[in-house]
């Protein structure tokens, strides 16, 4: 076991190798963290001149002197094994590298930014701890990045995850700190400098937030542009753009806009609180709206240049966020209406509630109108984009769950009223919030249910033309590596026909192991269209598609041995269904 695996030694069985990697990388992770903590403690002690903490020193020494050499030894062992390509492609190594890269990036960035901001303070700077942390974790980050990009042993597995983790962390940090900086600045501008006047000048917190924002922006830029996060055409990057750039940024922007409107409406119609209290949420709301809109706009533009699916998803998510805002606004309006119907003992505040609901509705509804385009709904089955039905069902489902919960609450309060000694006014007051939500959920569910039924009617009307016959397609791809992606081809055929596609790569001619053919390979999109068109007239459940090299494309219908019609396919591909027969395959191109 001590000898490193030589190339001639057969690799251990899959399960055993996975277990070995799991133990190895978990151990390495723990040892690196332990030695980093020890080194950080020793460095901090070096920077601080006077310290009498013997226990802390002993712990740091133990971590460094025991954890450090062990970590190096284990790393050396792992690194030697990584000469082997299969070892580098193993999920364990990718996960370890990604995990440690993310941890070291986050700790190093926050420590260095902490160090920078610790000097923007009237009190004495507490620099030794963040400096020691920053040095140690920056070194670990650099070390792992070196391993990731090593010219001889690069690790491409989970490469997009590392870039995405870095850019998401940078984006959230940068945007959050930018909102804080802008919010503090605007607050001083709007309300004047009031609090903490004795401690520090007003621009200190602004500058601190600005430093954090700049740090976050640099991390984001590095991973998004330098490390090429935006260039990865993977599902993860698409999901990140949608989840962070569209969903979170959209909620931030819309929420900010709603609060701005709310404050303005209160200033005009409900100035019951002191002006200073009324204006308090205005500055952070303006900052959220501006920064959120900026981030949202950037990702919206980015999503347009990506796949159609991403663009459509970004539109649907924008529409969903806006609809949630508008619907909750309707719920609050109903809530305020019912609140006004009850005569309370004291207080009221229904005006504030109503203005809150109206501002949410006024902000959400136009954005929803623009994103969803309710007046331009599909008129034919062909216009119904994929994903739309999922969206409709999701909204219908979510509103149904909301309706169920609110009904339960209303039922509980109603029975409490019927069984106990409770005034009618208090019953209405306690069911007004769930009743408002119920009305909003009902409106949303009704609208989406009508659309869903309408879509279903359109699809049903056009169903005979799309009746699916083909159940299973066996795709044999003979394109050289790097020309046509057989996976994309298979996905396209599956999407176009609805059949289950099994993909095989040819090993005899033009396969991945052979030099590329001189004939140019067709574009995947054209191929998919040709195959789908050829399959439309198919009458058998099983189809064999032989695609490539070059322009070769054969679509061969198959039946089982007991069936009447059989085919005349290439003998080399003969399976149980390909024995003899006389129904020739359709050769689309010679």
């Amino acid at each position, binding site marked *: 076991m001590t000898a490193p695996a030589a190339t001639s030694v057969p690799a251990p069985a899959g399960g055993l190798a996975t277990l070995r990697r799991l133990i190895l990388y978990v151990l390495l992770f723990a040892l690196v963290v332990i030695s980093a903590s020890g080194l950080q403690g020793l460095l901090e002690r070096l920077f601080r001149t006077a310290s009498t903490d013997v226990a802390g020193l002993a712990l740091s020494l133990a971590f460094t002197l025991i954890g450090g050499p062990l970590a190096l030894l284990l790393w050396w062992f792992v690194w030697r094994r990584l000469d082997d390509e299969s070892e580098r492609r193993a999920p364990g190594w990718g996960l370890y590298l990604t995990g440690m890269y993310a941890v070291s990036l986050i700790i190093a960035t926050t420590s260095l930014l902490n160090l920078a901001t610790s000097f923007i303070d009237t009190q004495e700077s507490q620099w030794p701890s963040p400096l020691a942390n920053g040095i140690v974790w920056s070194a670990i980050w650099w070390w792992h990045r070196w391993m990731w990009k090593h010219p001889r042993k690069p690790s491409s597995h989970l490469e997009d995850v590392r870039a995405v983790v870095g850019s998401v962390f940078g984006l959230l940090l940068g945007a959050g700190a930018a909102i804080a900086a802008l919010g503090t600045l605007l607050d001083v501008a709007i309300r004047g400098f009031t609090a903490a006047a004795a401690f520090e000048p007003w621009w200190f917190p602004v500058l601190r937030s600005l430093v954090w924002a700049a740090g976050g922006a640099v991390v984001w830029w590095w991973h998004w542009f330098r490390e090429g996060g935006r260039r990865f055409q993977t599902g993860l990057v698409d999901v990140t753009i949608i989840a962070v750039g569209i969903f979170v940024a959209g*909620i931030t922007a819309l*929420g900010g806009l*709603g*609060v701005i409107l*709310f404050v303005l409406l209160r200033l005009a*119609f409900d100035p019951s609180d002191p002006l200073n209290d009324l204006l308090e*949420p205005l500055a952070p709301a303006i900052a959220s709206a501006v920064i959120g809109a900026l981030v949202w706009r950037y990702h919206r533009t980015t999503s347009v240049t990506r796949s159609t699916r991403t663009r459509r998803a970004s539109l649907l998510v924008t529409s969903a966020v806006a609809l949630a805002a508008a619907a*909750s*606004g*309707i719920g*609050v*309006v*109903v*809530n*305020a*209406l019912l*609140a*006004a*119907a*009850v*005569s*309370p*003992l*004291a*207080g*009221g*505040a*229904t*005006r*504030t*509630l*109503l203005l*809150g*609901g*109206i501002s949410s*509705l006024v902000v*959400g509804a136009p954005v929803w109108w623009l994103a969803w385009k*309710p*007046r331009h*709904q599909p*008129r034919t089955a062909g216009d119904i984009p994929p994903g739309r039905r999922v969206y409709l069902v999701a909204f219908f489902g979510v509103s149904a769950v909301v309706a169920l919960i609110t009904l339960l609450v209303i039922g509980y309060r109603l029975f409490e009223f019927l069984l*106990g*000694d*409770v*005034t009618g*006014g*208090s019953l209405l*007051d*306690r069911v007004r*919030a769930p009743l408002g939500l119920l*009305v909003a959920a009902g*409106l949303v569910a*009704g*609208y989406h249910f*009508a*659309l869903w039924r*309408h879509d279903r*009617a*359109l699809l049903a*009307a056009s169903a005979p033309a799309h009746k699916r016959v083909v159940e299973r397609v066996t795709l044999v791809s003979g394109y050289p590596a790097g020309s046509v992606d057989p996976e994309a081809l298979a996905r396209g055929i599956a999407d176009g026909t609805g059949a289950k596609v099994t993909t095989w790569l040819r090993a005899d001619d033009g396969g991945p192991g052979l030099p590329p053919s001189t004939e140019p390979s067709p574009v995947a999109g054209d191929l998919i269209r040709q195959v789908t068109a050829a399959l439309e007239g198919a009458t058998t459940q099983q189809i064999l598609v032989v695609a490539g090299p070059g322009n070769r494309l054969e679509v061969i219908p198959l039946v089982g041995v007991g069936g009447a019609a059989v085919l005349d396919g290439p003998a080399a591909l003969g399976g149980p269904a390909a024995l003899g027969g006389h129904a020739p395959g359709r050769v689309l191109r010679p």
Partner: protein
Amino acid sequence: MDETAAREHTARRPDRILLALVGVVVLLVVVALAVVFTRGEPAPLDEASPAGVVQRYSKAVIDGDSTTAQSYLTEGAKSRCRGAYVSEPAPARVVLVSTTERTNSATVKVSIVRSSQGGPFGPSEYEMEDAFSLLKVNGQWLIDQPPYPLVDCTVVPVKP
């Protein structure tokens, strides 16, 4: 022709639903605005009843009128209210749930609503139920134990 007409009919149907929904929303907003903005002060209850005392006390606490609030407390309640009690923002709304009146004591259950500015889409409200304990002192109802969101201890009692 029939098929085209049917398709057009199907295509136009969501439009009508949409118009109906927009109408409902607009109607809701208009009615809510009218009701909320024409709504006056809460109707005053009889001051000789426990609920009337609770109403006047709660109104004074919400308005920040500590002197008036103190006048509805028993001596025991005033003496328990010592020291700096940093209270949270006063509740936005107090609604009567039930009154239990005995010979010399009473319990008034109320629903206390607090609102906060937080939440991504407008203000949010929290509702809790609590009870006032009242005692009859010299023929007048006084509050012996207010619920903690309605405790008002800003007036430091003068020691004898």
